[in-house]
């Protein structure tokens, strides 16, 4: 495609400005602020339209920048170009409310449609960004040599992966990584929040469970207590029974004793009666015996007296003197007297030892009366004790009943409590389950994470594919162009996988870092030209060079101009210097010259 002429009707500082281009080399000269950039932008705007951006970007967008201050309805222009031997006329109105474009083939008068892609056909499918990377070439921006190398390398790397030297793929991928981290943090926070809610619910469950356990424990405690009370009741009953038995036994013994006493009394009476009669008989006997005994006693006494008298007589016979005879006689007399006294007393005493029943009757009767009274008293006491026992029994039973009643009542309460708690527990557990099920669905960040993953994957895949497609050919073309530009001084460009670049001369390999700024600019120029050739193979596009040669020395500039003059495509050199014109004149190359303003 060749640009024939452009007419800016009302665009920035241009009012009805027409510039006509040659098919070959064109030098557009203008001092600063003379409208070089405006012309540049206008050509771009004609080819791709200028749309007002939405939002914040609108304030600084191209549309606003070149929008005329007056007569804005007339924000428009036209352009004529040649492609495939035919001439086309493209006119546009940029006005935002109703942008209009018209494409007419002047050669055969056919009206074409921009909307339907006829212009795209003319441009060989070139997009705005591709245009920026091929047709429109500016100079490297970096001021330092190091920065220049980095910039060139980045452009190379970016271009190979994205077809767009300005797009830093690594940075884009890093941004996505950052987004991913942000989403993961959000997700974690959400999870923690939901987790704490779940904990709240499960704490509630635990709480009810504990209460339930407590109630169950209390219930079994009460059950044990009831057993204990029942045991106690049994023990008390047993004790009472034992006591009762003991009392009955005692009573029986008492009775027995009474009966025995009665028996004994009767027996005694009977014996007494018998004894009485025996006594009478005995008395008679005694009287008789006493008579006998007295008789015998007397005779025995007589004998003893005689014996003593005899003894005393004998004693007197043998006694030496009178004194001893007297003593013996007196002693014998005393002994005989003593014998008499003793035997008399013995006899007198014996009848007194037999008791006289008649004398004892009075005190015995009194004793019997006391016994009866005592017995009655005892009976009464017994009665009272029994009654007390009975009362105690009733009291205890009542007490135990009450106790058991109370226990049963509290057991019932616990049982009810357990039932309630069980139901409550089930209800809460169900709530918990419902919450957990709902939670499975709820993770809004998951979607974002998936999306970020997907975006990363797409970008990486496309970049790899583009690098494979562009890489090798780009290197070849660049080497060719550089070789021509340097008239064989540098033969080949080398780029490794880390985009470290260098050039081969016939003898040496020189890394980019060691090249002069001028040579680096040449490498860059070669790169841009190579890109342009690759992307615009079907339809060679005009090349717009915007102050590209500012840093070139005269020799390099001559080489570049010579190379450009040989190219098939149209070349538009925008410059604020007169060097280009002078050198072209000097080299006697064909070109057309346009001076702005």
């Amino acid at each position, binding site marked *: 495609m060749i640009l024939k002429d452009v007419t800016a009707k009302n665009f920035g500082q241009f009012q009805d400005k027409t510039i006509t281009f040659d098919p070959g080399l064109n030098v557009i000269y203008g001092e600063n602020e003379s409208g070089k950039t405006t012309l540049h932008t206008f050509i771009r705007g004609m080819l791709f339209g200028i749309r007002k951006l939405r939002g*914040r970007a609108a304030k600084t967008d191209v549309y606003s920048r070149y929008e005329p201050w007056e007569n804005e309805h007339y924000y428009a222009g036209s352009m004529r170009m040649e492609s495939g031997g035919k001439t086309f006329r493209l006119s546009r109105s940029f006005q935002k409310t109703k942008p209009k474009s018209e494409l007419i083939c002047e050669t055969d008068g056919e009206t074409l449609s921009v909307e339907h892609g006829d212009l795209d056909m003319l441009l060989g499918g070139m997009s705005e960004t591709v245009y920026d990377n091929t047709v429109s070439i500016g100079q490297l921006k970096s001021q330092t040599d190091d920065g220049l190398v980095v910039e060139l390398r980045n452009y190379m790397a970016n271009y190979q992966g994205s077809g767009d030297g300005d797009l830093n793929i690594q940075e884009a991928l890093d941004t996505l990584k950052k987004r991913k981290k942000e989403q993961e943090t959000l997700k974690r926070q959400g999870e923690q929040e*939901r987790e704490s809610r779940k904990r709240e619910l499960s704490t509630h469950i635990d709480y009810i469970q504990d209460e339930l356990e407590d109630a169950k424990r209390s219930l079994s405690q009460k059950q044990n207590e009831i057993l204990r009370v029942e045991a106690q009741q049994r023990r008390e009953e047993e004790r009472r029974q034992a006591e009762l038995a003991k009392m009955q036994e005692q009573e029986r013994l008492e009775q027995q004793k009474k009966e025995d006493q009665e028996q004994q009394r009767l027996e005694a009476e009977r014996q007494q009666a018998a004894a009485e009669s025996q006594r009478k008989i005995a008395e008679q006997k005694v009287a008789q015996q006493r008579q006998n005994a007295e008789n015998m006693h007397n005779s025995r006494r007589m004998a003893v007296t005689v014996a003593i008298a005899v003894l005393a007589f004998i004693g007197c016979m043998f006694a030496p003197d009178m004194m001893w005879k007297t003593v013996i006689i007196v002693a014998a007399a005393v002994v005989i007297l003593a014998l008499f006294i003793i035997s008399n007393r013995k006899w007198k005493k014996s009848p007194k030892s037999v008791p006289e029943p008649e004398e004892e009757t009075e005190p015995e009767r009194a004793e019997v009366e006391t016994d009866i009274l005592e017995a009655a008293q005892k009976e009464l006491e017994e009665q009272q004790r029994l009654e007390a026992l009975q009362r105690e029994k009733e009291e205890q039973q009542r007490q135990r009943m009450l106790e058991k009643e109370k226990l049963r009542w509290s057991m019932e309460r616990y049982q009810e409590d357990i039932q309630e708690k069980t139901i409550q527990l089930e209800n809460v557990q169900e709530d918990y389950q419902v919450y957990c099920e709902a939670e499975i669905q709820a993770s809004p960040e998951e979607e974002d994470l998936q*999306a970020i993953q997907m975006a990363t994957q797409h970008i990486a895949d496309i*970049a790899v594919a583009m690098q494979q497609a562009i890489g090798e050919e780009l290197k070849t073309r660049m080497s060719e162009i550089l070789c021509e530009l340097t008239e064989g001084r540098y033969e080949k460009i080398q780029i490794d996988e880390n985009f470290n670049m260098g050039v081969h001369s016939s003898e040496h390999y020189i890394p980019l870092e060691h090249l002069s700024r001028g040579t680096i600019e040449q490498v860059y120029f070669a790169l841009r030209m190579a890109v342009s050739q690759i992307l615009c193979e079907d339809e060679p596009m005009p090349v717009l060079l915007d102050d590209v040669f500012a840093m070139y020395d005269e020799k390099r500039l001559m080489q570049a101009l010579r190379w450009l003059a040989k190219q098939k495509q149209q070349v538009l050199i925008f410059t604020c210097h007169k060097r280009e014109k002078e050198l072209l004149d000097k080299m006697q190359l064909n070109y057309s010259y346009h001076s702005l303003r």
Partner: protein
Amino acid sequence: MKFVHIADVHLGAAPDVGYPWNETRQQEIWDSFRRVIDGIKEEGADLLLISGDLFHGQPLVRELKEVAYLFEGIPGTTVVLIAGNHDYLKADSHYRTFAWPENVICLWEDHCVSRYIPHIYTYVYGMSYVNREILEPVYNQTYDDGATLLESEHADACHILVAHGGDEKHIPINMRKLADVGFDYIALGHIHKPQILQENAIAYAGVLEPLDKNDIGKHGYIKGVFENGKISAHFVEAACRSYCHEEIQIDTATTQLSLADRIRERMQACGADNIYKLTLTGYRDADVTFALPQLKTLGNIVEIVDETQPDYDFDRLSEQYEGTLIGKFIDSFPKEGRTRVESKALYYGLQAMLEAKE
């Protein structure tokens, strides 16, 4: 004969676990139920129909005592009770053994039965759930038996069916057939949204108090009267609060703080007591992302869905970057009918790449 029809009270439910209003809502459900009874006390009603799910789960005895106490307070009103799928009659359900006041009729049978209430000249029909789910269309029985069922000695009495369910797993109901049986009124429960399926004849009372963010709109009960052989019934709003779904339109000028102000204003305008689910729509500035967790603390907000899209003109971008990574990236997604993940992937990728362009 005046009647009140309520359903799905869900006593004992505690909506929105983990949100600050969780406990308040649990109480409000009881309060609302009590207010219905108070209303009956004041205005009088012959019949209180409770179409199932009075309780959120299995009723506790102490809860039943509370309810019984309230019923005792309206001795002139006959209360008709059935068990729904939430408070279904489990084997050991206290429903079965509880001693109800005299004015309460419990239809605990697992098949449709009828009871005649002589002093108001009314037949009530109904049955209860003994399981969480009932897949059989049990009310079909009334289609067939309907004619005989309604052939009573009191031919011009009022006939009311109290029913619960109507979806696939909870007794599917063929409403048209049921309508043809000849009931004067069908008091339905189970569906949370109140709806009058047939004017003055068939109605879902809906939940008395909304239970979750999907129960949007007005909630309350149905009040009706049977006069001269005709029913007239209407919905009465009674819930303490509503769940509101509000859409907030975003544009490229919207910032986090301006959005917070707009949300506050919107909630103020729609009722600060209500509980909100907010959806953000529209085109946001491509550089802005809204911090939703902060926004959620502005009021009773259960959920915020961000459906905003960054302000990208895809056609334009696709055109502009054709042949380069960005262009190919846009083209790697379907032009139309993108899934949510795909849309988001497109935004994320574009944003990252445009940011990375100097």
